[in-house]
């Protein structure tokens, strides 16, 4: 049984003797899926810090009524760039970065199907991100002091028209997101081709780790849902540069059409970001519960159902534009329907934990917080699908609270869990559990302190995207609480960064398989050699490493 690779010298040893320039050069020209994956995640985390700073300034401004820390114009730029960054430059690169790193390892392949296309995707994404941030310098060209886009992350027409958005700030938004989109579609096609054609011997579709299954669904959704955004952005380019009239109501065009096109991308995008979270959780929970995942086929089916249904719910972002009762009813129904497969998954995870021998290591802590916070996010999501309720609360802080529970409370928590779980594989060193606990608890407290009160502020009528508010609305208290959560979250992130730096230098050696896990990535060295596996692994069940460790009781007959 030789699927465990002998402890080979890490590929870094030779490189470390070389100079800094040589090492940087190695990273720039690499087509190795592991290095690209790490670069994706690291750049995503850098953008996460920047977007977090932007959010902190906004929270500071909103702490009390009538404050004047930033001007309304700057506030508009802050929430636009914050939202755009979080979705396109934090969420997308981190989830695809993990997939880059993990999918080939988990299916026993040596790389993705198209390594150079993979490198192209990463560099295009990084260029797009830098282009967006260059807008702070170049948005208004030579005329102003420079400005970032201020039209909101979904850039509704007609606000984006030449007449209402002069200068180039909107073009920076448009072009930077357009090019990152090309990279994301390329990476998705790459993932699909890899998963369908490069699995090791014995790994039938039904034996793929759930992580791989869900990333396959995500890649499929991306290939279908992202090009519509690119199409709408090309139309916007034509409108702004060639005087076309797609979204120009004065020439018969339709501003609502932008909303349809944007959300036809935008809602699947929510699942493109969330399903990878589900995917990571589905690997972490079984390992730390010491049990097989409960209902593997059901989770796969639920993931496929989410993939299909997510294409049919987009207009629930548009109940207030007056689509009429039949459309409202249809989109409300589909939105409630998509809660069913999502709920099924929650039951699967809880059932996996039930009766298990749970180890509360840091990844598992994040997974538990995810379960609770994602449930809250799902419940507010279903209530927002009720049309009259939506009319009351649309564009309020209730919505802000809802999607931050989804994207921070669920996605960012799973990402942190995943970082603690797979960091030892990528670096060969464990992150400190003690600092991990501090990180976790400060982040849970800070997150809930910031985002729970926003539900109340929203129900009291506070609209989103206002730069200040009068003192007599009863919103002060909830806003103060929300801002008080910021230092907790900031401290948590700081501890996380310290943890990474310290552990990289002095962390405990991880060995091949520090968590006693079951999927193939733990069968090779940590960090894995450039070629991943010395020989192509052969698997006979969903948990190849279990079979290896327990030859007397292999999994196969139980599946």
């Amino acid at each position, binding site marked *: *049984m*030789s*699927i465990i690779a002998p402890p080979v010298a890490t590929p870094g040893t030779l490189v470390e003797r070389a100079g800094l320039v040589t090492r940087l050069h190695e990273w720039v020209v690499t087509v190795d899926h592991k290095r690209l994956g790490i670069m994706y995640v690291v750049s995503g985390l850098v953008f996460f810090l920047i977007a977090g700073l932007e959010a902190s300034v906004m929270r500071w401004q909103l702490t009390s009524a009538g404050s004047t820390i930033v001007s309304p114009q700057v506030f508009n730029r802050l929430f636009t760039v914050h939202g755009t960054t979080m979705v396109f430059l934090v969420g997308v690169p981190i989830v695809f970065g993990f997939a880059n790193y993990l999918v080939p390892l988990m299916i026993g392949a040596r790389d993705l*199907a*198209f390594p150079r296309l993979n490198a192209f995707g990463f560099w295009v994404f990084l260029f797009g991100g830098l282009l967006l941030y260059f807008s702070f310098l170049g948005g208004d060209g030579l005329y102003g002091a420079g400005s970032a886009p201020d039209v909101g992350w979904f850039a509704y027409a007609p606000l984006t028209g030449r007449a209402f958005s002069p200068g180039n700030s909107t073009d920076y938004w448009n072009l930077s997101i357009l090019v990152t989109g090309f990279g994301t*579609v390329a990476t*998705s*096609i*790459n993932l*699909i*081709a*890899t998963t*369908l*054609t*490069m699995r090791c*011997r014995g790994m039938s579709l039904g034996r793929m780790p759930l992580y791989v299954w869900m990333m396959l669904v995500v890649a499929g959704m991306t*290939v*279908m*849902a*992202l*090009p*519509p955004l*690119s*199409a*709408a952005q*090309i*139309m916007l380019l*034509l409108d702004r540069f*060639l*005087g*076309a*009239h*797609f979204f120009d109501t004065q*020439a*018969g*065009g*339709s501003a609502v*059409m932008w909303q349809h*096109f944007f959300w*036809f991308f935008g809602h699947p995008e929510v699942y493109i970001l969330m399903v990878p979270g589900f995917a990571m959780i589905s690997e972490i929970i079984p390992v730390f519960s010491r049990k097989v995942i409960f209902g593997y086929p059901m989770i796969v089916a639920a993931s496929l159902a989410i993939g299909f249904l997510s294409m049919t719910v987009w207009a629930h972002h548009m109940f207030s534009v007056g689509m009429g009762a039949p459309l409202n009813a249809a989109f409300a129904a589909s939105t409630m329907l998509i809660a069913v497969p999502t709920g099924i998954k929650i039951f699967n995870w809880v059932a996996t934990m039930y009766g298990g021998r749970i180890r509360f290591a840091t990844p598992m802590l994040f997974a538990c917080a995810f379960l609770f916070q994602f449930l809250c996010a799902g419940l507010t999501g279903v209530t927002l699908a009720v049309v009259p309720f939506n009319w009351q609360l649309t564009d309020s802080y209730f919505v802000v609270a809802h999607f931050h529970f989804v994207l921070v409370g669920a996605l960012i928590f799973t990402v942190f869990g995943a970082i603690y779980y797979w960091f030892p594989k990528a670096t060969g060193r464990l992150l400190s559990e003690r600092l991990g606990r501090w990180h976790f608890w400060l982040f849970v407290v800070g997150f809930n302190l910031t985002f729970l009160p926003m539900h109340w502020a929203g129900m009291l009528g506070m609209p989103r995207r206002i730069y200040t508010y009068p003192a007599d609305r009863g919103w002060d208290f909830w806003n103060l609480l929300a801002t008080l959560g910021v230092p907790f979250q900031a401290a948590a992130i700081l501890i996380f960064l310290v943890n990474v730096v310290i552990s990289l230098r002095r962390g405990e050696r991880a060995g091949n398989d520090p968590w006693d896990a079951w999927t193939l990535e733990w069968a090779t060295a940590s960090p894995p050699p450039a070629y991943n596996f010395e*020989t*192509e*692994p*052969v698997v006979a069940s969903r948990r190849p490493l279990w079979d290896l460790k327990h030859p007397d009781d292999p999994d196969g007959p139980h599946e």
Partner: protein
Amino acid sequence: MIPTARMSELTAQRMSAHGSGRLSPARVGMVGLIVAEASLFAVFVVAYLYDLGKSLSGPSPTEVLSVPVLGTVCLLSSSVTVALGVRALGRGAVRRCGAWLLATVLLAVVFLIGTAAEWLRLITREGLTIGTSLFGTTFFALVGLHASHVIVGLVMLALISAFAWSRALRPAHLERVELVSWYWHFVDAVWIVVLTVVYVIGR
């Protein structure tokens, strides 16, 4: 677990999978690209249909558009010639493959000349540009998006054809040529949709 001899046998199997009917990374990748492109075109088609008749100023499609019969015949028959080219390469006839691909290129050029002539007439004589009216916006965007895809395909086919004459193309490249032909069939299929939407329903 796998002896080395078995490994090389496996590798051999995997190599031979290319060019046969089995799934290969390149085939799946091309299907993925085609799905993404179809999604892109779908949005432009929906916009065209939604904006039909909503123009606030002329000229109207009925006044200025006529069905491009010659161009359509050329483009659709180019699907046949490209398929014949692939078949020739599959039989090892590299030169014949190059000839069929050259024929494909010529047919596509005829199509593009037709489009160029139509655009020239619309812009200079009818005064219809992308900024004139909503009809101009949707028409030039959709037809232009398709024409740009024709140009991309044309460049790829012309290159392969040139490689065939310079003997750089070998039967081992069958799968790559076949995938270019898939892209070309897709561009043709999109034209059938564009033709129906713009010149039949939209007129």
